[in-house]
């Protein structure tokens, strides 16, 4: 089935990382530098103009919490959800502690959607989490993203114009940005509001898979400001 996420490639990746455990730290530094360079190069002129809905989503390369590299264009042919996250933010905790975000992630990945959680919190921020700690937090929340990407330099976040945590972007199989905005329709920190809110990710993916236009393609994201490196 073309829609299933590549779990075998994940296990191969895991094996590769076990072998490379010794050199991991130094390798990550090298990769991160290369990625930052590559990302800047890939983004070129787009560095200061975030894509609007209906425009091509900027390509990027990023390292996940396990140290593996992911390139957006490698996911061509699939829907990709980018979710900006920061466990220190009460709005992020609202959607994780309630189980809403993990459930949304599971529903999406079960349909073959690639879900990338992105952390653009700068290293100097008080709530910055090391990759291992972020990974552990995600696991403790029973989160189900395809990968959790580290973006401490904020290159990806700024390329997309990510402003809040959470802030959601959906990219279609042709690489177009088809949704940008909030996780749901009620901007609040109250978990009780989740059940009455419209989950825009579920709605947009449901419409896209049903061959319908996305009825709500741009919404106001709400949450904490992304703590970018200044």
């Amino acid at each position: 089935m073309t829609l299933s996420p590549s779990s075998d490639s994940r296990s191969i990746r895991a094996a590769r990382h076990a072998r490379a455990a010794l050199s991991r730290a130094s390798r990550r530094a090298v990769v991160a530098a290369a990625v930052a360079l590559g990302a800047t190069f890939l983004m070129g002129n787009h560095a200061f103009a975030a894509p609007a809905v209906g425009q091509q989503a900027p390509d990027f390369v990023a390292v996940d919490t396990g140290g593996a590299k992911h390139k957006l264009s490698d996911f061509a042919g699939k829907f990709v959800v980018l979710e900006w996250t920061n466990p220190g933010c009460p709005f992020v905790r609202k959607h994780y502690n309630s189980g809403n975000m993990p459930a949304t992630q599971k529903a999406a990945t079960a349909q073959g959607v690639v879900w990338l959680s992105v952390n653009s919190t700068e290293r100097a921020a008080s709530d910055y989490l090391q990759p291992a700690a972020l990974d552990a937090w995600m696991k403790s929340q029973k989160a189900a993203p395809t990968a959790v990407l580290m973006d401490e330099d904020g290159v990806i976040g700024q390329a997309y114009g990510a402003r809040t945590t959470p802030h959601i972007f959906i990219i279609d199989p042709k690489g177009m940005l088809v949704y940008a905005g909030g996780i749901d329709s009620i901007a609040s920190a109250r978990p009780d509001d989740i059940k009455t809110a419209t989950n825009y990710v579920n709605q947009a993916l449901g419409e896209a898979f049903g061959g319908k236009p996305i009825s709500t393609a741009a919404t106001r994201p709400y949450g904490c400001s992304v703590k970018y490196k200044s």
Partner: protein
Amino acid sequence: MPAAAQLASRPGAVVTTPHVRAELVAHAPEGVAPGAPVWVGLQITHQPEWHTYWKNAGDSGLPTELNWTLPSGVAAGDIAWPVPRKIPVGNLANYGYEGTVLLPVPLEVSSNFKPPLALGTGASTLDVRLKASWLVCRKECIPEEGEFTLALPLQGSTALHKAEFDAAQAAQPLPLGGPGAVEVSGNSLQVRLEGLPASAHGKTLGFFPETPELIRTAAEPGKDWTQSWQGGTWTATLPLADQRSASPTTLPLVVALAEADRQPGQPVAWRAEAPVSGSWPAAAPRAEVSPALQAALAANAATAPSSPASDLPPQPTVTLMAALLGALLGGLLLNLMPCVFPILAIKLLGFARQAGNHSAHRRAGLAYTAGVMLSVLALGGAMLALRAAGAQLGWGFQLQSPAVVAALAALFTLIGLNLAGVFEFGRAAPLSLCSAQAKHPIANDFLSGVLAVVIASPCTAPFMGVSLGLAIGLPAAQALLLFAALGLGLALPYLVAGFIPAVALLLPRPGPWMNTLRRLLAFPMFATVAWLVWVLGQQSGIDGAGTLLALLVCMAAVVWALTLRGRTRLVIATAVVAFTAVLAAAIGRNVLQTVEPARLAATAGQRWQPWSAERVAELTGAGQPVFIDFTAAWCVTCQYNKKATLADAEVLADFDSKKVAMLRADWTRRDPAITAALTALGRSGVPLYVLQAPGKAPVVLTEILGKAEVRAALAAL
């Protein structure tokens, strides 16, 4: 959450959190009386570096929310937001307040206000309760809330916080003389304001749009956006937000002097509601699906003809092969029915008698098979034609439709009752026709195949019914294949006997066992009904399933009553039919209702009834005008209209005075009936508001529903 702990204590006028001190304050210099100025407000004192937000919070953040509880006769106005400041957060920017801010709210005291009886002290008070929630941020953000109470003395002045209210008043933007003008040009917004006072001329102004998600909030003046003065006219060019989610036709905006330019006692800011000209850059929201995904989706759609939505009740996933096998077995079983088996037995004994003429037997077997198959296919084709005609009349042949599930349950109940012997289907052809014999032996065998189907029709009908039930969701070709399998099953014993004469001798003799078998077969049919009722229960809830069962019992009684003779039949059948009709009219709707969370809400609010085309016809038929709100949870405009115009007391009073029935059609889940109704009104989406009076053409109101418009439309009834 740190703030929550604060709420445990008894509410007073002050809530203190680690980040703010919030106090409910009041200003009523002339006491509390109709017409006197009465102000209340939340005063927030922030810890250094912390801030809360303006009505448009900017790139992140949430505006402070105030929810008042006031005695009847007292109404709270909107927050009179003081001019905010722009708070840069890295490369983002917010609009909000640091230091101390007072968010004042005017209270309107009407002459209906009855102050509570004074207890002991003698002084009457106006009790104000406030539930407020605010988001306070430095770099990190903490959502906080608090409950406040305050008792305002009616007599005597409350002016303890005069200075703060005066300061908040001074920080209000003044209305500008003209509306100003905003033009969308490419990816920028051209703003032109006239009528600013001379004291502001030549100064650099701050720009605060009240509509969020419109301009790039973090754009820096002089660098990313420009402003200039031509005499008394201020113009500015502002960059639009990359991910704009609002495209208003009117932009309320505030311009403010820089803090350094503000003079005590002089206005600091001005507000205008500028009409927007030009067209907002369009977005292309349609998601492109890759060819591989499209193919996979098409394959899914072919195996499950109904919608791919995942949260629908389980569907019968009978694959075509299983269905074909079932039909074949059904056809074979049909041979053992009392109306078929004797014919088969006579014909097979004929084979046994003319032993030896093998080629003639084979020809006879093939001709008989052809006759059976052709007549079964003809019947199947006729049923499919009926189905197609029905589809054109608007039936939705999907098992998600409770109506189809209920109809299938009724069909299978009838089949079960027939097999159980409660009633018999009539024979399809008169016996005289059946006795006509052709001279040519092959034509004779072909005809006897046709006649086997016709003569056996009392028994064939249930088996055809089962095939039709299975075929109901299938495309025509597959459905016909199913009927063909049934025919093949029916013809198979004779066909096989034609080739292997020994088979004929293996058959049992006709006898009472045939009736026993037939009655036994009633139980699988009733089991199918049980399953269908369960499916319906998923769709229509326990009420729907219960109603269906009650109606099925009634239907069984009607069928039984029709088998009676003479006067008894007339009396009992009439009574049972009448009772069934009453029951169906009273609770029949339960079956067809789709249960979803919205229905609970709809029944809780008595004013709004759930929409259905039948209900509209019923109400208008009874002479009552109806107002229909086509809405959806995901439609922001709908929610806005619902909370603003459709919750407005005056508007609702007009609805009541005209005795208008209010129906709500919730399109949150795509509903074919609502889609059809929208299409009929020339629309493809929500919001849509229709006022329909009996005998008049429906009036379609605008999508952004105005109070005046609704009231005018109601007045015209």
